[in-house]
């Protein structure tokens, strides 16, 4: 599979004054193949969203690079770069309430990309917007309404239409379903699945709902405190986790199956994700890890590919 998007040692720090830095994304190398869905999971504060935003250029890169179809993208985007890349890469945001401008009609919101990035005249733009409203399960007549007139699920569809109307090749979905009810989540997931089939999209699907990520993704990447700890086929990572953190994450994910839950020992671990300001030396998970070794506290483990598999794990247990 040809790589569409490739991040190489991508790093994003935030300076917070007094010489302190938040290590939001640290040295992340991830390849996303064409027409592939890669799920990215991790706790809040693990840097998933920052990674997604850095990949599409909403944050500048502290170091490292992002390649799109072999072309290295600029370190930080100028307006011309956004102009050029917007029709190739788009983003769907987490919160369907704050990510839509309340003073614009739905038609204006969805049309904005086309107005800026295409040569279509206003009649053609309107026709495309109507077409997309129907495509995402709304009605053409909704164009003149404002976003506050819609429910959460409908707003998320508006966000999807806005991102996809330019028919991008690569879309970052940042927790597109976490604000929605279960029955509506399925609607949005199925919609994304259909659009992926018809448009041949490549997706980076960021979420913290592990069951849903497993269902949606081809491959799953697990992030902890700014760095990747495990990557592999989604089902394999979920059902046969290798990294102790992935084990904990999967074990903590409650399954809708009472018998299984009664059988399963509690995997609750002590402690919380440490502050990304003072990143611990060595393995970042060492202070919470149930299988911690001597060297974990001093030597940072690198992602290594396990024998006979596509699985990559950053853990000394597998050295």
């Amino acid at each position: 599979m040809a790589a569409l998007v490739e991040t190489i040692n991508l790093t994003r720090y935030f300076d917070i004054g007094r010489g302190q830095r938040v290590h939001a994304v640290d040295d992340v190398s991830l390849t996303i193949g064409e027409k592939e869905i890669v799920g990215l999971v991790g706790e809040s504060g693990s840097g998933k969203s920052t990674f997604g935003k850095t990949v599409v250029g909403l944050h500048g890169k502290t170091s490292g690079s992002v390649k799109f179809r072999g072309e290295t993208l600029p370190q930080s985007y100028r307006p011309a770069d956004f102009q050029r890349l917007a029709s190739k890469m788009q983003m769907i945001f987490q919160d369907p309430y704050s990510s839509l401008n309340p003073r614009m009609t739905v038609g204006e919101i969805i049309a904005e990309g086309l107005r800026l990035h295409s040569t279509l005249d206003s009649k053609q733009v309107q026709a495309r917007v109507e077409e997309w409203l129907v495509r995402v399960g709304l009605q053409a007549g909704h164009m003149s309404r404002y976003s506050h007139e819609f429910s959460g699920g409908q707003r998320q569809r508006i966000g999807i239409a806005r991102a996809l109307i330019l028919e991008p090749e690569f879309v970052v979905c940042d927790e597109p379903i976490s604000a929605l009810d279960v029955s509506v989540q399925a609607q949005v997931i199925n919609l994304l699945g259909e659009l992926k089939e018809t448009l041949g999209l490549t997706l980076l699907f960021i979420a913290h709902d592990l069951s849903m990520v497993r269902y949606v993704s081809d491959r799953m990447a697990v992030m902890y405190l700014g760095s990747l700890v495990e990557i592999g086929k989604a089902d394999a990572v979920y059902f046969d986790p290798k990294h102790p953190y992935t084990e904990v994450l999967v074990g903590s994910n409650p399954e809708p199956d009472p018998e299984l839950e009664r059988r399963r020992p509690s995997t609750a671990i002590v402690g919380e994700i440490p502050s990304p300001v003072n990143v611990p030396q060595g393995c970042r998970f060492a202070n919470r890890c149930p299988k911690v070794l001597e060297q974990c506290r001093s030597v940072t483990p690198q992602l290594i590919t396990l024998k006979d598999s596509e699985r990559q794990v950053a853990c000394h247990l597998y050295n």
Partner: protein
Amino acid sequence: MTGVMTSPQTIPALLEVRDLAVEFATYGGTVQAVRGVSFSVEKGKTLAIVGESGCGKSVTVQSLMGLIPMPPGRITAGSARLNGVEVLGCNVINGKDIRGSQIGMIFQDPMTSLNPTMRIGDQIAEPLQEHRGYSHKRAFSEAINLLSLSKIPEAAKRARQYPFEFSGGMLQRAMIAMAIACKPSILIADEPTTALDVTIQAQILDLLQDLQTETGMAIVLITHDLGVVARVADEVAVMYAGKIVEQGSVDDIFYRSAHPYTLGLKLAMPTNDPDKQHKLNPIDGSPPDLFAPPPGCGYCPRCPFSMKICDSRPPENFEVAVQHFSRCWLHHPQARISPAAPSIPRELYVGERA
């Protein structure tokens, strides 16, 4: 099918709620948020109330706690008896007899539920001073005990800190410490882990279960997460549009789902077995407008099995098995599933253990 029942039959329970109805007068009209809810909770057991946003699950428990602002809220019917004593009327906003002493409550968002200007220890001490008449000093040292009971490390130091110095998971522990301060017989947990990560969620759920084993308190857990329900609940009530549509043991609800809505929720989620993975089946449409609730079943317009009777007459509460109730006309002996109803393979919703 054992016949028609109007309400669940139980041995005298710790908490007995009958036909509770709550409405809110708003500018746009009257919202009938809770439309006749009955359930009971037994000592040492966990009842989970499940439902989507707007189904009335939070309003139900808030009315027990006297937390419904009146006006605009109004409890129009029903009773709630705790150990045989009515709590609905006496537990108004200013009456603090029951709230905090016999019923404790924790909320969804620990960040905004605590007073940011008070030290954690003082906040936990407050119910003890209020209900038990403890001196501040005695209450504060008891607060430190409670914090360590909630597994907060360095409790004595933490008690002197303010909420902003705590993480989300730690605040939820502090809130649990506060809720159990007066050893309530019931703890109401309204979406206690929704704002937390799965690893922290597992810690909090374990803590609640440990405390339940130690103290024998009953827990009423409000949640929308069926995974959390499967993990901690003994009994489950599924709510939709202000009514409980299905009620039973956790195994009944998951492995022998009777109501089409419960079934719909399960089919909308991924399975945990890749070999049995089906395409997600969303529930189309949206819940009814509770300003003008439908005369029949609230789920009828979204229900793939709906019959002629469904949109005109509210379904009775059928006991489909012992202590397993479903409010759906499909259980009526004369019900005929229309040939147009989708045939959903049984193994999708009935586990092989059924």
